[in-house]
């Protein structure tokens, strides 16, 4: 697939990082409109679910614009970012929120302990558990995290990261994938993840 045939759509989760994710695609030479319109979404080749803030507020937004029912019915490659990744799971401990259920498991609060600060904020290292095209070239790379909740490491975890304990940093099952870190703020490593997701050469 050449770049001109790609149509990336950002699913409108209302997060404040929508503009930043859009800018990250713009730096790759790609428009990425924000939408909750079923016609626009069905015409996309790739879907991205960004998000910052609280899981409950983000799910309320998706219920409000119908994306809570539309997203599970889509068939294109889907990438959740940060809270957007957390929403892919069955539920989140944050506000005891029921999520989209596209991946099994429950998102939990990161435990703070002496020397382990929560929120987990800053650049931390990815370690590959399961090599896959989505995480090619990312093993050992430092990427930018800002979060207090995380999904446990399981069979869908491609890369893990550690803040006190290991957690899932990049997940994938079938067409559904997610990054707990912010590719739009992770410099070249972040751009690498996005280009891997789109299946394009840098």
């Amino acid at each position, binding site marked *: 697939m050449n770049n001109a045939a790609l149509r990336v759509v950002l699913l409108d989760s209302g997060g*404040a*990082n929508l*503009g*930043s994710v859009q*800018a*990250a695609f*713009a*730096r790759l030479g790609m428009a990425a409109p924000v939408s909750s319109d079923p016609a626009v979404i069905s015409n996309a080749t790739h879907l991205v679910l960004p998000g*910052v*803030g*609280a899981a409950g507020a983000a799910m309320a937004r998706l219920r409000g614009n119908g994306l809570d029912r539309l997203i599970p019915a889509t068939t294109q490659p889907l990438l959740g970012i940060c809270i957007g990744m957390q929403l892919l799971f069955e539920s989140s401990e944050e506000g005891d929120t029921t999520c989209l259920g596209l991946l099994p498991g429950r998102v939990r609060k990161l435990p*703070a302990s002496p*020397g382990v*600060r*929560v*929120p*987990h*904020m*800053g*650049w*931390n*290292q990815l370690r590959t558990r399961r090599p896959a095209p989505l995480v090619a070239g990312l093993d050992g790379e*430092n990427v*930018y995290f*800002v*979060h*207090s909740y995380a999904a446990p490491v399981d069979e869908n975890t491609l890369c893990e990261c*550690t*803040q006190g304990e290991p957690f899932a940093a990049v997940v994938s099952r079938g067409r559904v994938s997610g990054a707990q870190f*912010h590719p*739009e*703020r*992770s*410099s*070249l490593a*972040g*751009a690498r993840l996005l280009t891997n997701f789109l299946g394009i050469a840098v």
Partner: protein
Amino acid sequence: MLTRRIIPCLDVRDGQVVKGVRFRDHVVVGAIEQLALRYRDEGADELVFYDIGASPEGRGVDTAWVERVARLIDIPFCVAGGIRSVEQARRVLGAGADKISVNTPALERPALVAELAEAFGVQCVVVGVDSLREADGEWRVRRNAGDPARSEALATRTLDWIQDAQRLGAGEIVINCMGSDGVRGGYDIAQLRAARAICAVPLVASGGAGESAHFAAAFREADVDAALAASVFHEGILPIPRLKADLRAQGIEVR
């Protein structure tokens, strides 16, 4: 392992980056976008922009340059200055800032911190604390520190305010040690250690960096998560690649 962050601080006034000594005598050091890109290319982990005129002049942040920076750079950045409400914060975050930092308005109305945390999540909410040791040996907070004419000492103890701010929902604390700011004699390690002891969220050291050893001391002796500096970077005294090489050589994890 979570790496220690190096954060150039860009004081913004009238659309340009300026630098003062002990919060006074500001001179222009360059254009916002040009410096943001330069620091990104040099390996800065994050940038902080202080709109130093906003709070003293009683106005909000001009979001046009926030939008330009957000499109330009691919590392996180925080915007501070004049954010007094959830609505103003929403404009700055919507323009593409990753975090917002509140200082004087949070001292005047601490509930602002809780409102911001509720609206955007604690990870977006940084509380900046300008602090100075007084004759009785206590560290106390200042407000409107960006404007010498209006800068004002408060009765609030710095350490009490840091605890209150966390309880209200601060996701990160930046402590500006005013006594050491701009003179490059080293961070105020004693104050940073005292703050670290009561700070469960990420803590950022600010004020006094002059050489690599000062950063190393803040990380080693005060266990801060990040160190912020301005003049050493603006004036080319300590290039970030050299600083990071020095820290790495001492076994301090950096990106």
